[in-house]
């Protein structure tokens, strides 16, 4: 039981995981993921891969919405840019760079491109905020998808019909099965989460939080809004770009419409359900958001054995479920599942002396 802040040195206070429970939790998670990669069946691995990709993207959204307080409804655009950057890089560099190195170079390339475009999309955040920024990012999302769909770029992007994606190859190791891809996704997801947790221990992360809490006060304290708002957009776009790159490696084909408004809303829904401004919020949110369609599938299968008519109803029911999740969490639990988890842990901690 933790009864207080009992740190004896600054080094102990500055650690990313500042107590034994957190360290134990992270190690247990790592062990759990390793076990999953070894023993999970194909279906579990598939779901876990989807969760891993979404987790990286939602962590990025969390940086900009949850920590910096800038409302963005256009993060699917960065996922799209990451995905297309990987494909274009592979196609362009296929002859010149040896295949074993391609993936190792394509991932940083995708992340960099997404971050640069993130800075461009973040430019309106210097002038406007709140609602105006939400619409500006939404517009950016529409424009990016529109440009990808254009015939003029179809030679590189495949236009409306989408484009086939390459398989990842790490130094000669072809990641052509779901299980192998899971290892890559899980490793990168794990590192991204720890990096996010670390970010908010540093000067940059704390500047973000100051901007969220009151941007003018932050500026008076000497935080350059110009610099840190753009940096926040760049970091979150980089996360989304990484997610997009993994998305491209994971699926055999990508289509521009997969990165539209629906994906943006899904990312935001995940962070609202999970809890904004908390590292674990992204984790909880992603688990819920990825499981909802699966649960609906199981329920529908249980009711009618999955007839063709029911399959038609499934998509609308799923979208109603997403909307209802956002609305219900905003109305009844605005801080999301992390808040519920906190409450439960606190009750456990104080038991049997006090509740709640």
């Amino acid at each position: 039981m933790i009864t207080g802040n009992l740190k004896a040195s600054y080094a102990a206070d500055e650690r990313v995981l500042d107590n034994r429970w957190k360290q134990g939790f992270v190690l247990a998670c790592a062990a759990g993921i390793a076990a999953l990669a070894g023993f999970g069946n194909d279906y579990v691995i598939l779901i876990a891969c989807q969760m891993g990709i979404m987790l990286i993207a939602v962590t990025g959204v969390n940086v900009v919405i949850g920590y910096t307080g800038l409302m963005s409804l256009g993060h699917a655009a960065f996922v799209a840019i990451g995905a297309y950057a990987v494909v274009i890089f592979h196609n362009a560099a296929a002859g010149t760079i040896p295949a074993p190195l391609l993936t190792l170079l394509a991932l940083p390339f995708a992340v960099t491109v997404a971050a640069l475009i993130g800075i461009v999309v973040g430019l309106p955040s210097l002038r406007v905020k709140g609602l105006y920024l939400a619409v500006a990012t939404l517009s950016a999302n529409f424009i990016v998808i529109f440009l990808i769909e254009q015939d003029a770029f179809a030679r590189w992007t495949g236009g409306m019909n989408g484009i086939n994606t390459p398989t990842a190859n790490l130094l000669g190791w072809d990641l052509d099965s779901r299980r192998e891809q899971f290892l890559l996704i899980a490793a990168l997801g794990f590192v991204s989460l720890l990096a996010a947790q670390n970010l908010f221990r540093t000067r940059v992360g704390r500047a973000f939080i100051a901007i969220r809490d009151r941007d003018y006060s932050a500026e008076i304290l000497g935080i350059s809004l110009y610099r840190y708002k753009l940096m926040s957009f760049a970091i979150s776009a980089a996360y989304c770009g990484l997610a997009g790159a993994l998305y491209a490696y994971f699926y055999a084909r990508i289509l521009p419409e997969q990165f539209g408004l629906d994906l943006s809303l899904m990312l935001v829904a995940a962070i609202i359900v999970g809890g904004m401004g908390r590292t674990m919020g992204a984790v909880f949110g992603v688990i819920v958001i990825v499981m909802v369609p699966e649960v609906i599938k199981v329920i529908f299968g249980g009711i009618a054995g999955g007839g063709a008519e029911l399959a038609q109803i499934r998509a609308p029911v799923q979208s109603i479920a997403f909307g209802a999740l956002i609305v219900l969490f905003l109305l009844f639990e605005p801080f999301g599942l992390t808040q519920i988890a906190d409450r439960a842990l606190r009750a456990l901690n104080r038991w049997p002396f006090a509740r709640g």
Partner: protein
Amino acid sequence: MGQFLQFALNGLMSGAIYALIAVGLVSVFKATRVVNFAHGYLIMFGAYFYFTFAVLVPQAAWAPEWLQSWRPDWMVEMRADLPMFSPLAAVLDWMANLPRILLGLAGALICNALLGMLIERTLMRPLMGQSVFAMIMLTVGLISILSGTAQLIWTSDAAFVPALAPNTPIRFEMFGATIFLFGADLANMLIALAIFAGIVAMVRYTRSGVAIRATAEDQSTAYSMGISVPRVFSRAWVLASTTGAVAGAILATRNGVSPALGLFGFSVLAIVLMGGLDSYLGVFIAAMAVGVLEALTQWQLGGEWAGIVPYVAVLIVILIRPHGLLGSKEIERI
């Protein structure tokens, strides 16, 4: 020049419909400080209600025959000896549809008003006084709920809906060029402009309009002056959803009924921000400008480019004037 005028006129006609949709967004914002991201989906519901009452209900087995197609004897006689494309024949064809058009409009208005009231009561009111973020995100969640519900209820494919006005072709000379318009489009524009003007006049001169403006100015003062602020809220939502119903009916006759109508709301959102959230005049200018720009883009670059015109325009305007063309600047205190 002739083509330019033709496309500019087409642009003005769609700009008027943008203005009609925008008036709902502005009214809700003025009264409640909420920007409704799901407004496009309210419009989609309006279109589907119009489709239900103007097409599905008259087709039902229990509906009387005159509802489907009203043809009294005198009309049949008059129709019989008219040539193929005469304007009078188009008017008579329209009159045969008149009962179901009226039923459709009435049904769309009533159902959409109820829907708007329901949303305001159950979702928006509990969040009054909360952060802007929560309210915007709530309407974002509403997008998913509304589009899913519409797909559940109306599974049938998009079908033909009767136009609101006789669809006679109109041809006239202007600056030495021949302009070609459809009667229904012109009537749609007039309806949209009339409703826009009516609402602006209402907000300016009537008691409930003054109540809306007072609430916009200062909620608690309005309360203490005896204005029922919750009633103002629900009135604004009804206003938005009924104008949305008319706009939905018009859009349904132009583009057909489909879930894609919801996306229309986002371009109008862009227009509203461009004009300035709380200025009817600014929004009107922005709507007309975007309508014309869209039509000209369609002429010069092709139809698909027209779709992103509002978004590019709003980005440019926001970067230069963060509060839109004529919007009032928010004053923030630390």
